[in-house]
């Protein structure tokens, strides 16, 4: 049997597949981040926390309301989205006229509050969330055992990613949003209700995080800290992809998932750093990111 750098090809395929699965999480999260950044110019530091909230809402629904996975898949993003809209209306909206850095700082504070509150309430060890019955078990692909749930995650997040991309890049909506980022007053003067649109966009962006949270719940522990470290990696993904670029976020998310998967095989110790290394290299060569536009 031939092998690649000492790794049999089957194993390599398996690892690539796993990388793709991880990448689809990155893509979904960085997509939300990119939507919010691209449209509102806000770096949503609370994104990881809202991802966590999404997972928790799913868990709470299951535990206290008997609403299962499929229900949560709809309800949790809506709840997170509404929470996002409230946050946007009451706080973020006051900051648009100021330097963008204040948005970052505000959401940083919000992330601390959300995570701290859940930690205080539910402890840090996390809560179990079962894989829905319909998706239990897996397929033996020969080179690996692929749990059905993971396959579903890839399909679901890619569908959502490309759907979002289409809606934003290929419809008038995207043009409104981009224009509103630049000059909300003028867009308003064209007869478009910008504040509502902006709130909805933020709500949608964080709803994507909430959705990722629900998707993650059965794989990872539903824990208050689940978003904390992830968010930094997702930041790096967005920077590499080019901030605000929707397609960049999706493609980079997937690409880095794969790259990370490979690193886990060949040099696992570096699997967390590899993203940052790539980031540094990309920035040196292309300061605006792979798909970013110099502003």
């Amino acid at each position, binding site marked *: 049997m031939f092998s690649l750098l000492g790794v049999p090809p089957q194993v390599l395929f398996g690892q690539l597949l796993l990388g793709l699965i991880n990448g689809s999480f990155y893509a979904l999260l960085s997509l939300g981040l990119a939507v919010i950044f691209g449209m509102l*110019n806000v770096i949503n530091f609370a994104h990881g926390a809202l991802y966590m909230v999404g997972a928790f809402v799913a868990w709470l629904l299951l535990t206290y309301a008997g609403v299962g996975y499929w229900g949560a898949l709809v309800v949790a993003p809506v709840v997170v989205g509404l929470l996002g809209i409230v946050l946007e209306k009451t706080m973020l909206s006051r*900051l648009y006229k100021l330097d*963008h850095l204040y948005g970052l700082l505000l959401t940083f504070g919000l992330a*601390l509050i959300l995570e701290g509150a859940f930690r205080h309430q539910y402890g840090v060890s996390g809560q179990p969330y079962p894989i829905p019955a319909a998706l239990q078990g897996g397929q033996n692909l020969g080179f690996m055992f692929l749990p059905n749930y993971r396959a579903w995650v890839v399909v679901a997040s890619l569908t959502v990613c490309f759907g979002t991309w289409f809606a934003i890049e290929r419809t008038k909506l995207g043009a409104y949003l981009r224009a509103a980022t630049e000059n909300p007053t003028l867009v308003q003067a064209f007869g478009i209700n910008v504040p509502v649109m902006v709130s909805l966009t933020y709500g949608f962006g964080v709803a994507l995080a909430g959705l990722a949270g629900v998707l993650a719940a059965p794989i990872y522990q539903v824990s208050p800290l689940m978003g904390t470290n992830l968010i930094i990696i997702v930041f790096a993904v967005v920077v590499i992809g080019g901030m605000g670029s929707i397609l960049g976020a999706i493609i980079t998310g997937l690409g880095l998932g794969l790259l990370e998967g490979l690193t886990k095989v060949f040099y696992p110790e570096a699997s967390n*750093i590899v993203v*940052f290394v790539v980031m540094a290299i990309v920035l040196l060569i292309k300061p605006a990111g792979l798909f970013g536009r110099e502003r």
Partner: protein
Amino acid sequence: MSAASNSTSVAMRGPSRGSTMATTLIAAVLLLIAVAAPFVLYPVFLMKVLCFALFACAFNLLIGFAGLLSFGHAAFFGGAAYVTAHVVKEWGWAPEFGLLAATVVAAGLGLVFGLIAIRRQGIYFAMITLALSQMVFFLALQLPFTHGEDGIQGVPRGTLFGLFDLSQPLTMYYTVLAIFVAGFALIWRTVHSPFGQVLKAIRENEPRAVSLGYRTDRYKLVAFVLSASLAGLAGGTKALVFQLASLTDVTWQMSGEVVLMTLLGGMGTLFGPVVGAGLVVTLESYLASTSLPVPVVIGCIFVVCVLVFRRGIVGELLARLPRRGH
């Protein structure tokens, strides 16, 4: 151009020249208080405040006077703490060389960060520094000399210049105070130097500064390295005070904390970061004995500061003082 002016409005104006006298007076009074403080307050606590105050001042040099928000300053602070702890404990260096090593390493790290990050501004800059510092965190976690989650423990304080036995709390305290004062003085000087003027100009309108013939990247880089070095000095000092270096100081949460200190005290004011550091450290030590969840309280302060209190405490005070000059 609107982008340029956008990304600069974070920084507030420093005190006008008219108030320099007042500032000197305040500084003298504060210094007197600081000299007397260890007889009233707990010296270790005071030293911690001073270390963080220097850290915050160094950070403020960047955000307040160059308009650059670094979200990765923990890398310099915590990284330097490891350096001091290691060279003093394992290599037996004298404390002054330990601190020097910390400063130099932080400066080097700052140079590397700077070369990568300085080409972008605003939030881009913040995110890049954040990611880079995360890399330093993983290195600190994985490199053998840092001893993982145990950290470097039992660092000897040693004898400064072969003369002052730092294991005496008061000697240590006055050493820390001296380091702080020196660092603060350097920042003060920098802000009010020809270099500081150019920095302000760049913050205000970068393309214009370029057209006047300033290679703005270099100025920003120097400011960044300066800030990183001082943050490193603060970190090294902290390692001596607590006789340990641990992962806490390299986490991104620490980077966030220094932002909070500066924001709370007042960005772009000289004394703001000092006040902010004092408050945050006091708060943390107070909260340690209550049942309130610390992150929630800190988060709330963050949100309140950003929403209604952007000038910070010192900034608000300055704004309320009767304006003079002109």
